[in-house]
């Protein structure tokens, strides 16, 4: 069952037709998924302090109801670690169309995957999983299964990817934690079953997987037109 907070997020996003990233992440967090540490602010000082407290570089993103696809608007800046850089980029992001807030979060390093869902006309909720990132549509190295998933569905999805070797660790690089990934995909598919009345499609792209955990680094929820 969907938590009350999650239900409210969906309800409040209906007029926009999609769920803003901070809300989508809050929804995922309320359902027990891992998201990177973050702060939502328009204050440079607050963002700067968050960056200084972080033991890793941070990412800054514009939160705007007018920007569904952030890459095209250069609304995401990665690898920020100096105050000067952060100030400059925050000022630029704040000028983007409709920018309400800046989402600053820890930059997790790992393998970029896509976990998505679509409410298919013929088959209902289906899950898409594969190699993620901004070039996902060019490579289209993904597998599709009908939700809900069970463990062996996840294994067969991983096996069917051309880049499956990357997931098990390639040329000395660590692979992904298959157990964490399986949990993520199975739980995600159950969440999608709960959301099917309202959901058109959902992208978790990228999901960044390390040898320990899987973090949802970006989330986009498109709602059904009412």
């Amino acid at each position, binding site marked *: 069952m969907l938590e009350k907070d999650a239900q409210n997020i969906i309800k409040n996003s209906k007029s926009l037709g*999609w769920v803003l990233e901070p809300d989508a992440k809050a929804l995922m967090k309320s359902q027990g998924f891992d998201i990177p540490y973050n702060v939502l602010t328009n204050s440079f000082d607050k963002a700067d302090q968050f960056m200084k407290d972080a033991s890793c570089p941070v990412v800054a993103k514009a939160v705007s109801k007018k920007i569904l696809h952030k890459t095209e608007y250069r609304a995401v800046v990665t690898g920020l670690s100096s105050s000067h850089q952060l100030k400059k980029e925050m000022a630029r992001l704040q000028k983007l169309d409709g920018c309400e807030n800046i989402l600053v979060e820890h930059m997790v390093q790992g393998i970029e995957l896509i976990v*998505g869902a*679509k409410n298919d006309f013929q*088959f209902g909720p*289906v899950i*898409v999983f594969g190699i993620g990132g901004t070039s996902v549509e060019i490579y289209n190295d*993904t597998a599709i*299964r009908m939700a809900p998933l069970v463990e062996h*569905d996840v294994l067969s999805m991983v096996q069917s990817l051309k880049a499956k070797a990357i997931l098990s660790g390639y040329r000395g690089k660590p692979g992904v934690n298959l157990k964490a990934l399986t949990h993520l995909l199975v739980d995600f598919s159950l969440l999608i079953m709960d959301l099917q009345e309202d959901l058109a499609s959902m992208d978790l792209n990228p999901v960044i997987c390390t040898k320990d955990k899987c973090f949802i680094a970006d989330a986009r929820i498109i709602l059904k037109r009412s």
Partner: protein
Amino acid sequence: MDLKSLFKPSTMAVVGVSTSQDTHPANVIYNKNHLRYPVKTFAVNPKGGIINREILYKSVEDIESDIDLAVIAVRAQFVPGVVELCIKKGVGGAVIISGGFAEAGNSSLQQYVADMAKEAAFPFIGPNCLGIYAPDLVDTFFLPGERIIRPDKGNIGFVSQSGGVLVDQMVKFAGQGIGLSLGVSIGNKACIRETDMLDWFEHDPGTRAIAFYIEGFNEGEGREFIKKAGRCSKPVIVLKAGKSKKGIEAASSHTASLAGDYRVFSQIMNQYSIAEADNEFELTSFCESLSCYSKAMDGNIGIISLSGGHGVLAVDGCEQHGLSIPGIEQKTMDIIKEKLSPEIQNIVCLENPMDLTGSAEDSDILTTVRHLARDKNIDCILALLIPYSPGVSADIGAKLSQVAMNEGKPFIAYVPNEDKYKMIIEGFELNNIPVASSVEGAVLMAKALKRYMPC
């Protein structure tokens, strides 16, 4: 709903038989069933009269005996009235041949008929369809008997959204010696749909594999189909038409863009162990193979040929279709070598693909198949039997079938489809061993068995 009246009728009324137009669909259907099938057939036309010295009844209600099946071939606007009379008489079900419903934009008329039938638990096929071909029992196709090629009675159940594709597939089945238990063109599928047919075939003892030609499902219907098909105890084969990128454009998320309609369809079929054929040729091969072997396998193929060239061609085909050609265990090769005729012992190749050479005799082939079937690396054997070799007898089909049945591992043969090799081919087919008429066909038969195996 009980579909027995539809698919195993003893009596049938054909509504719409014309007194003036011999080629009217109803006349063709009436004549062929009346003259050539065991189903007792009655002709109906509101005008009444006599047709071919038999009574032309004014209404189904006027027929004295009970009617199992009504074939309705009247203009669309008259269909509701005829269905109403059928329900009143207690007819078991109908095939509505008539067009002019949803396919012509007249969805409300179709819905009206569907609602009436649903309320009365009256099953019907169509509208806008050819209906039923049950070999040796009934044939509601409005195509003159002399124009169509009919496969013999067999164990494939075939359901098609397109009547034309069904008729054409019947030609292909007949050419390959594949028999049908029942062929149904479901047309607009206003009542009987793919899921109903799955239920029927699941319980039909005469059906061993179920094939579908699918253009598309209604909202949520794909999920219902897949759940039934996934649980079905018999192999399900699907040929999908309409694989274009429709539905992908203007997607607002990556996922929607990556998961176009056909990719979703195809991958879900795979998830639930349904064999998806890429084209009609594959469909034919899949049907033959899956009617013999219902279990899924990983796809490790052992190839035996009497000519190196055929072995290499088969390897190429296997690789193209995602099948593996694993190494053969040393102990398998040793035991085969020991038992081969001394004349070929030193000239054969016992690596995969195995080449027993043109000098091999029946006993060499039998020995090789027996021991290759026991090799744990191999899931399925392809035997490319070139009957031109002098040492191969006409009994090789029957003899090899016995070995294959004893060993219990899927075995597929290639024998050229020529009259002079019929005895070899029948030696296999009558023992339920699939035979392909080309190397490629044999590879496709093996491909059919490689399906996802849920735990």
